[in-house]
């Protein structure tokens, strides 16, 4: 495969961005959810 470093890099960048944003969001969700009672969470 030609230019493999750019091709693999683009996949790593894309899925790496998804993983980082998802992890940060879930961490923030967990920390905030401790401070709000479950009955106030409209999605439950």
């Amino acid at each position, binding site marked *: 495969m030609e230019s493999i470093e*750019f*091709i693999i890099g683009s996949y790593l960048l*894309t899925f790496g961005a998804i993983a980082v944003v998802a992890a940060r969001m879930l961490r923030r*969700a967990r920390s905030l959810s401790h401070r709000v009672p479950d009955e106030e969470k409209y999605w439950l």
Partner: protein
Amino acid sequence: MTTPTTPRSTGTRATRVIGIAAIVMSAWLTLFGLVLSPADVAQGDAVRIMYVHVPSVWLAYLAFIVTAICSVWVLVARGRVPGVDRVAGASAEIGVVFMAVTLVSGMLWGRITWGVYWQWDARLTTTALLFITYIGYLAVRGLDGSPEQRARRSAVVGVVAVAEIPLVHWSVRLWRSLHQEATVLDTDLDVDIDGLMLFTLFVGVIAFTLWFVWFVLHRARVMALAALVEERSLDEALAERATEVPAGGQN
């Protein structure tokens, strides 16, 4: 003795199903994109970047259109729909992330096909402008004011900013551009791509659409939690202040 229960976070059965489906589709996309789909006659293996680049920009456009629709709703309701405003903001945030991914994956693709990472070409420049516009939208969301004021103010930007998308999309026709024209549909709406390549692209679009739904649901709920925490903190501070003021006295 009661066992303390762990507070529930932003996940539900629906988000878990969507998240698992997005992971499975992303794995499929990687398998088809890197291994099973054929190399392009003209671009060779560089075409494999298309399978993450095109779905990323699709997701960004989708996110900004959702932001615009929610913004219209917010304006019609004069800012009194906090849930809709949160979806607008969540969608814009996700759009900005995927627009950044689009720009960088496009630079990597450009380095292979054009020999340079960046050219001040019509498509690249208008895409960068769109990215900067939505960073501006997020900055406007963070300005001071009541929740209704902030919602209305950012909704105006959300409605105006979406007008840039047709400009970005048609830039390759309006100006002479290095960037290739639409990959799947040409001007006659004929599908002009190999079957397995089209299938891989389709898998990518489905995977990224699932990611979009998953991200927006979680992000909007995180925003709701943050608003509730802020409200509770304010109530606690007011209650504390009230106990400090001596009975019948003023401070």
